[in-house]
């Protein structure tokens, strides 16, 4: 079947099998390998992307279900060479070590800040509770999201 998707503002059309998962469409068809393919069981959250305005686990969504929709991946967070504050926050606060969970964490973090610009650490932990990090112990991830809440894009 043919699917057309608007990924990070660019329209892509591909011929795919209906069983193709969105994560594999993004990584293998579009070569957008920033989204990570982790547990494959919708537990770990490494594959989180936005489907229209909503973060979803793309290992549990078919590419066919995203046909005609917008998708935002980590590659789309940066604007004109300027990192999104959530990306800068992870860099400033050492919010990652191995980096495997980071794209999903940042996409959920961005969504949270869009809906709650000044989230408490508890609200951040709740929002990220469907995503697993085996390196940081989460402390620095919470600090990274807080950093993004406190800084505008382009802060040096």
């Amino acid at each position: 079947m043919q699917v057309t998707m608007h990924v990070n503002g660019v329209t892509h059309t591909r011929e795919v099998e209906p069983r193709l998962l969105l994560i594999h469409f993004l990584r293998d068809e579009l070569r957008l390998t920033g989204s990570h393919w982790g547990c494959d069981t919708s537990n770990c959250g490494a594959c989180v992307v936005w489907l229209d305005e909503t973060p979803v686990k793309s290992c549990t969504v078919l590419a066919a279900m995203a046909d005609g929709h917008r998708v935002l991946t980590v590659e789309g967070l940066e604007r004109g060479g300027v990192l999104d504050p959530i990306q800068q926050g992870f860099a400033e606060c050492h919010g990652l070590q191995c980096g495997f969970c980071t794209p999903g964490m940042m996409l959920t973090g961005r969504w949270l800040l869009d809906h709650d610009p000044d989230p408490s650490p508890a609200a951040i932990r709740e929002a990220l509770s469907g995503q697993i990090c085996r390196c940081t112990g989460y402390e620095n991830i919470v600090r990274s999201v807080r950093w993004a809440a406190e800084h505008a894009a382009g802060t040096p």
Partner: protein
Amino acid sequence: MQVPAYVEYEKATSVEHALGLLARFGPEARILAGGHSLIPMMKLRLAQPETLIDINGLGELSYLRETDGELRIGALTRHAQLLDSPAAGRHFAILHDAERVIADPIVRNWGTVGGSLCQADPSEDLSAAFAALKATMLIQGPGGSRTVPAREFHTGPYETVVAPGELLTEIRIAIRPGGGSAYEKVGRRVGDWPVGAAGAAVWLAGDTIADAGIGLTAVGARHFAAAEAEEFLRGAPATGASFARAGEIAAGHCRPTSDQRGPADYKRHLASELTIRALRRAVLRARGTGA
């Protein structure tokens, strides 16, 4: 790498179109809503439909509204929408209690209320919540629509009364005066299926329980309900002693099985204790004194 087996795919554009597709592709077709149970089952070959009929485009099935003294929930309503609905929380706090502990926020963004009910997992939280609230399911088929009480909706593990060719479209809950409700769940970790969980809905007349609904999940309760405990509570005083007896009765009538989530006797203990806690909180809320 886990991928589903080859499958055909159709995108429904209306309820009528979905019903037409179900008729055309027959019993080996499955409705695809959020897919957060179906797709994992397809990866494991526990489900192997020939055709998926995607209803995610049916905005007409995504709503929460108060109509004719009922809260009506469209089957395609996402868990996150139910959790965000002030009307649902105001009338039926049990729904927000339950939604807060279903999976995780990202899964709740896409998983649907109707999908969870039709998946009919014996540990499903919403099945117990709607059983406690004595909800009604609206099912549409080629010959029109029919309503089924929540307690007749599930016929067994992973089985419902929704026939091939039919579609669950709405859940209805009567808004009755003097009501309060609550949900209590024990899980091994955040986001997991329950080891055991209980929901309670009470309708008070003064200090007397005029009517009660108790839902149980993951503990082998028939139709996700504790009918014998409800019978005991009807007309009983709303006191701790009544709650304790109801918990005892509820535990006595469920049939939990031992598995990786815990031994049967522990689950039976949970059925009692969580019924008591849910009743206590439901009564406080019915009196307007509980959070």
